[in-house]
């Protein structure tokens, strides 16, 4: 992955949250690059920092209760260092976001068409008539037809899958360069999930839009992401092209996670691989490998030092002392 190819480059991103129980080290040095037009998966378990990373790109943390470090280069400009006014210029226009529960993100009292049109009114300064045309076009694009009828409907008249299509229509109304999708299919049924995944993939292809796809499901990553980053305890522990990571996981955490997935290829009634223990709390800024307590291959160095990245072929890298040593 050469620099010129990247739309988004996150380097050493840290986020500390001030809570009543003390500082939470939510992100401790995230490095992540998303190439132009790429669907980049971010996987990990609850609390690993996937959503926190997404929120940081949008600068959605409360500045009074959090501290951010590192750089987030979007088309060469550092979002982390921007004035909030400048960030607002990007939000919804160049970078937009969709979430897990569409019902919670839509305005229940506004027709879905108007919610899409609002984006064009605000960000593209379109006239009412133009905005309406854009909204109708978007409804068609996300497969909600006939658009004329759908325009007038309210969220409660739509199923979860259709609501998520509306969310996507809102998100892409201004042809963003980057779409951040935070577990967009987790609340949907399997057959509906398949529809939404196909939609996101075809939109990305068609519009040349990069997608940062946050999920806990490796299967989804394998289906639609060309590259993937695996997160653990506020860090990206492994990153690379999807097939390279899935076929040859270099980090013991990635390997263990993959082994614990029940797959269709697996023989029935066999024991699944599982990871003993659970992640530590994030109240400490660790000076050693965060996975060492659960790692079957941990040795002395792992408990004393934080591992840097070891590079494998084709941009595949992992933060583990065990590699190549």
């Amino acid at each position, binding site marked *: 992955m050469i620099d010129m190819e990247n739309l988004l480059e996150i380097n050493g991103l840290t986020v500390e949250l001030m809570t009543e129980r003390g500082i939470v080290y939510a992100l401790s040095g995230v490095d992540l690059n998303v190439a132009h037009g790429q669907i980049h998966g971010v996987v990990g*378990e*609850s609390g690993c920092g996937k959503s926190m990373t997404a929120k940081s790109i949008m600068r959605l943390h409360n500045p009074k209760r959090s501290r951010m470090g590192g750089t987030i280069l979007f088309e060469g400009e550092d979002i982390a260092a921007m004035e909030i006014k400048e960030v607002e210029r990007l939000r919804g226009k160049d970078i937009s976001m969709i979430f897990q529960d569409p019902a919670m993100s839509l305005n229940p009292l506004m027709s879905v068409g108007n919610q899409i049109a609002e984006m064009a009114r605000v960000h593209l300064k379109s006239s009412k008539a133009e905005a309406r045309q854009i909204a109708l076009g978007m409804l068609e694009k996300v497969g909600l037809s006939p658009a004329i009828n759908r325009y007038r409907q309210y969220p409660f008249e739509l*199923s979860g*899958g*259709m609501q998520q299509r509306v969310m996507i229509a809102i998100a892409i109304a201004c042809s963003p360069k980057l779409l951040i999708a935070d577990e967009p299919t987790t609340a949907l*049924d*399997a*057959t*509906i*999930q*398949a*529809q939404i*995944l*196909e939609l996101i993939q075809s939109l990305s292809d068609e519009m040349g839009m990069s997608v940062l796809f946050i999920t*806990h*499901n*490796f*299967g*989804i*990553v*394998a*289906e639609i992401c060309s590259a993937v980053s695996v997160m653990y305890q506020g860090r990206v522990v492994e990153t690379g092209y999807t*097939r390279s990571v*899935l*076929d040859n996981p270099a980090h013991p955490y990635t390997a*263990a*996670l*993959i082994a*614990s*997935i*029940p*797959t*269709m*290829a*697996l023989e*029935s*009634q*066999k*024991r*699944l*691989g*599982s*990871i003993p223990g*659970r992640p530590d709390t994030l109240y400490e800024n660790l000076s050693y490998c965060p996975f060492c307590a659960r790692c079957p291959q941990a040795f002395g160095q792992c408990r004393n030092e934080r591992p840097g990245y070891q590079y494998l072929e084709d941009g595949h890298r992992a933060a583990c002392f065990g590699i190549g040593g």
Partner: protein
Amino acid sequence: MNLSGSVIEGTNLQKRYHIPSRKLAEKGKELVAVDSVTIKIGRSRIFGVVGESGCGKTTLGRLLTKMEPTSDGTIVFNGRDITRLSGKDLIALRSQMQMVFQNPYGSFNPKQRIGSALAEVAKVHKIPKEIAPDKIAALLSEVGMPIDALGRVPSELSGGQLQRLAIARSLLLGPEFIVADEPVSALDVSVQAQILNLIMDLRESHAIAMLFISHEMPVVKAVCDEVAVMYLGSFVEKAPTQELFANIAHPYTQALMSAVPSIDSDIAKERIILEGDIPSAIGLGPGCPFAPRCRHGMERCRLEKPQLRDMGAGHLVACHLH
């Protein structure tokens, strides 16, 4: 002892709900949540039911455990007809049938210590005070939890730990039948694997018959002996696990399978993307419930509902194609 060897047997179970509606078009209509389902689960067997939201899998579990009365059909538990059981007899039966739910935080009182929650079960069902603590301690170690968990409240435990405790609680009364309703859906993958392994171990050691409800094909395949696929209240396909996944016959099962995002690159699979949403279960027509979304839908499918037919090897399919 029962002769058929099954712990629980439901025959032609049906559950209908009346829809009170002001809309004229829906007036007097019924929602058929479970339609003519026949199910039999033997000792130490895990029977999986897969399907999407609203297919009736949870209602089926509630019917079998007598949480809800059936509209039609019979339920036989250990050779005894319990279809019309009520009052004291039903309460006595509860100790032999337990449920484990999806969200363990929702199934424990957030203010009550785990120890007290478990002791309460023992007390209600009259397990002698001298035995209860030992029994609880033994179960705790069996589900892999330290004894000091008893002093905790739910918010101090992780989802996986709490689900272990929910399982321990369900085993406390020595049930013969457990309904596990999406027991791992709320858990992270690595924790999910731990719980699935635990369930497989316990089924052997406690000789339990289990109804395992899930929306995830790979999870069902991993733990179940037999699997039924449910769509809008009916079983559309039922077979021993190996047989089912080796010869998937129903178009809905095929679509469901193809919708499973898979990490295996070598499985060249045909992508079947179903169009539209799952239709409402209110006022279903006479034909196959899947016909409107089925790519093989024929004239006959819209007129006549296919019945489950045995294709051999215990593989039952409800489809006019077969």
